[in-house]
């Protein structure tokens, strides 16, 4: 039975990917350090990280496009480490799409099917299905050079999915498009992935894309996967300073653990004691960093005026305040550093130069080990 028919026969989700201890060196530089990753069948998984973090390398290793130093890759429980790309039964969407310039849209989509000896009516039917799925029917006889970026992107997606791959690998497929188109196509990719019941592994440096698309995501830095989890969990409970800073803005305060109970961990920062969210168990007396998102902080003229449910964390001076549409972005400073707070835009814009007290929502700030 050809792989094309296997999907129809089993009907269930497939394409579980397990990466075990992958290490990869390029001309003496280590770009991946003993990386492990498990992506469940049918899941939309995003690898998020800055450029040079090794996310594209990891994706290409799963595709079999890069030789690596040690480790293994398994798809659906079978080891594919030494299986050539051709036999891995994957779909790959390249950042620059890599459409065949000498073939039309329909021929590009038919390429993989023809290689798999799908012929005649079956071929025409599948190509039509893909054209319909990607809404490219009207453009079927165009060449790639006659298409816009968004259209090329959809051809690349249709081409990768035509032979019903077990795993769809996407390498920053929206990177070359403008912001509006990115959002539209992003949700389209998600829809097509859901309808085709394919596992998707998606590489991006854009956190918004990662939030919108993924079931789970992995944040990468310098050849390591730093944290894996659902987008909301990773955002609200980063496990390191890097993840906290990479996923949006954050405020850091040097702190010391003073106590721990069921409601959370009490830390002292400056003159104040704050309750952080439960999380990493830290010994009393150990130094750590308290990290709070700008939207979890309020300003008040004095400690006593702090809103209910908020705990004062620092006395600061307002250095800048700007209207940002949905929010008012306020920059503040004290002798330890600078901070950022997002206020509801309904509030009055604070006066620059006035002193204020920052207070953080109880149990919302997280503790990070001080490196």
């Amino acid at each position, binding site marked *: 039975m050809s792989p094309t028919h296997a999907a129809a026969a089993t009907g269930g989700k497939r394409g579980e990917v397990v990466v075990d201890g992958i290490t990869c060196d390029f001309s003496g530089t280590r770009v991946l350090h003993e990386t492990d990753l498990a992506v469940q069948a049918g899941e939309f998984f995003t690898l998020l990280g800055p450029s040079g973090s090794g996310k594209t390398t990891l994706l290409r290793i799963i595709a079999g496009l890069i030789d690596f130093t040690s480790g293994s890759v398994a798809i659906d429980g079978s080891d594919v480490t030494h299986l050539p*790309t*051709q036999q891995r039964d994957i779909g790959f969407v390249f950042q620059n799409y*890599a459409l065949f310039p000498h073939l039309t849209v329909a021929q590009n989509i038919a390429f993989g099917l023809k290689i798999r000896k799908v012929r005649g009516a079956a071929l025409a039917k599948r190509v039509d299905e893909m054209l319909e799925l990607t809404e490219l029917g009207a453009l079927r006889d165009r060449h790639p050079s006659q298409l816009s970026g968004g259209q090329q992107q959809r051809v690349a997606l249709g081409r990768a999915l035509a032979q019903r791959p077990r795993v769809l690998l996407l390498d920053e497929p929206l990177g070359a498009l403008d912001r509006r188109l990115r959002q539209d196509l992003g949700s389209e990719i998600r829809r097509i992935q859901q309808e085709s019941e394919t596992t998707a592994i998606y590489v991006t440096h854009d956190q918004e894309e990662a939030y919108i698309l993924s079931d789970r995501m992995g944040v990468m830095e310098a050849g390591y996967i730093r944290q894996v989890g659902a987008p909301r969990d990773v955002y609200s409970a980063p496990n390191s300073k890097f993840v906290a800073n990479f996923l949006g803005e954050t405020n850091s305060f040097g702190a010391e653990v003073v106590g721990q109970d069921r409601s959370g961990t009490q830390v002292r920062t400056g003159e104040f004691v704050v309750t952080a969210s439960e999380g990493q168990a830290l010994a009393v007396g150990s130094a750590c960093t308290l990290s709070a998102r700008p939207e979890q902080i309020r300003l008040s003229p004095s400690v006593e005026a702090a809103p209910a449910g908020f705990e004062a964390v620092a006395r600061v001076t307002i250095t800048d305040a700007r209207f940002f549409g949905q929010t008012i972005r306020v920059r503040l400073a004290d002798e330890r550093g600078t901070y950022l707070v997002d206020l509801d835009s309904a509030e009055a814009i604070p006066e620059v130069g006035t002193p204020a007290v920052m207070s953080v929502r109880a149990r919302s700030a997280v503790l990070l080990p001080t490196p």
Partner: protein
Amino acid sequence: MSLSTTGIPTVRPPRRSILDPVRLPKIAMAIAAAGFFVIFFFWPLLDVVLRSISIDGVWDWSQPQLTLDHYLTILQDDYLHLVEWRTVVLAVNSTLLALLLGFPTAYFISRLPGRAAGIVLLLILIPFQVSIVVRLFAVTSILSPNGLLSQASQALGGERFSLLYTQGGTLVGTVMYLLPYMILILYSGMTGIDHNVILAAKTMGASGFQIFIKVFLPLVRTSILSGALLCFILALSFFIVPAILGGPQEQTVAVYIQQQIDLFEWGVASALGVVLLAATLILYVAVIRIGGGFQAPGVGGQAKGVSAEQRFTWSAGTVTTGVLTLISLLVLLLPVLIVFPLSVGETQTVVFPPRGFTLEWYGEALTTDTWLDPIARSLLVATLTGLASTALALYLARVVQTAKSERTKVIISGLAFAPIITPAILLAIGIYAVELRLNLAGTIPGLVFAHTLVSFPLAFAIVNTALASRGLDLETAAWTMGASRISAFWTVTVRGMIPVMLSAFGLAFVTSWDEVVLALFLQTGPVKTLPVTIYQYLESGIVPTVPAIAALLTLLVIAVIITQRIIQSRRSRSAILADQK
């Protein structure tokens, strides 16, 4: 060579009357450029066409008499049939051989990592840049009865033989000449392919063979057609190699034309020239139609290499193409390297292996007027040609870049490339006829004009590409700061393009320095340019100073190319350093 233009709309100064003195310099330049083209390109072509349809090959404006006799001769004469057939067979065979060797070589280089690819390309560029007469001298000494091949055969117990004045010899020489063109065109086509496209085919399950047939070949089709066309056109009207290696027995069309001109039989010679031109044009158009474009050989021949992700591996494919690459390199490098041992022999006749060791011939070559006069003349002609070509190239590129109508751009750039597509032998006899009338034949300006015609297209290509990629942004910025159009052009655009202008000058200089065919026809005095002097020794018999001069010329090319590479890599290294800061 893509002729991209900026398309940035520029604000035109107010319309002025044609008679306005402010417009005089512009009009003068336009007239000079147009006049140059008319006198040294259109008039020669017209002259040849008219001669081909006149009785005795002499057109008389007062009593025009048309005749098609010369064309009928071409169609009917038995000896000419033989010459024509021989020419076509030579062109077909040499193109096929060049493709058979060039394709695997280009493929192999395109698979190599950057540094190794750069070295192999260098080994191809060096013979490419060594003057054809120098290489031709080396080939005659390899193919002669006392030459390398014959001696190797004798050492293996075979017979003493000579490939000189045979079809085989002409074929070897022609392939040696064409191979670098083929390799460079194919290489640039192959490295132009987005490697992700190949990977994409892999992810869709295509095997190596399927990828080659269904993706790789269609993507390099234009390069293959362009390379084959260029080689075929060059071979069809090739003059120097068949003239020396073929000798009188193996005349080709171009050699026959030259012989007829020597006998003042202009009629048939002109008709044959027109036929060559027509064949060239038809082929050119056909390839553009079939192949969807024509790709000229890359001027720089830069090694791109493959990225760190695609490691080079020895597979059946790379081993086979690697072996064929070695054969290509042998064909290209052997003639270049053999001049060194040949130049140090003590004997009065040039033999291989050399007997004894002496540097006396170098001393003699560099002290006698026999060589010093041609060297001085070549330097003068090439310098003047370089200056004229660069100026003309800059002017035309500027016109193309600022032209508003797309048609003007296409026409001017098409005209600029027309002289290098025209068979050299046709240009040679046409310009010779025109210069005889203008009393320019045999003079240095006469030769400089002719050389400028064939040298400036390459300079134009470089300058035009550079101008297009710079755009008019910087100049426009200078305008906003109050610079006049003229001063903005000189202080911003030209100043910034000094490296480009230098390489344009260098390219035109080298083209003129190596040029043989035009120089052979247009020099009537006793002192000739250097390549023509060597050519004449090839015809009349080699003296021991010829290999010494050949060796010096080869060393010069090697030195220039290696210096260029060092400067380039220094620059790119400092660019990388600047990036890191």
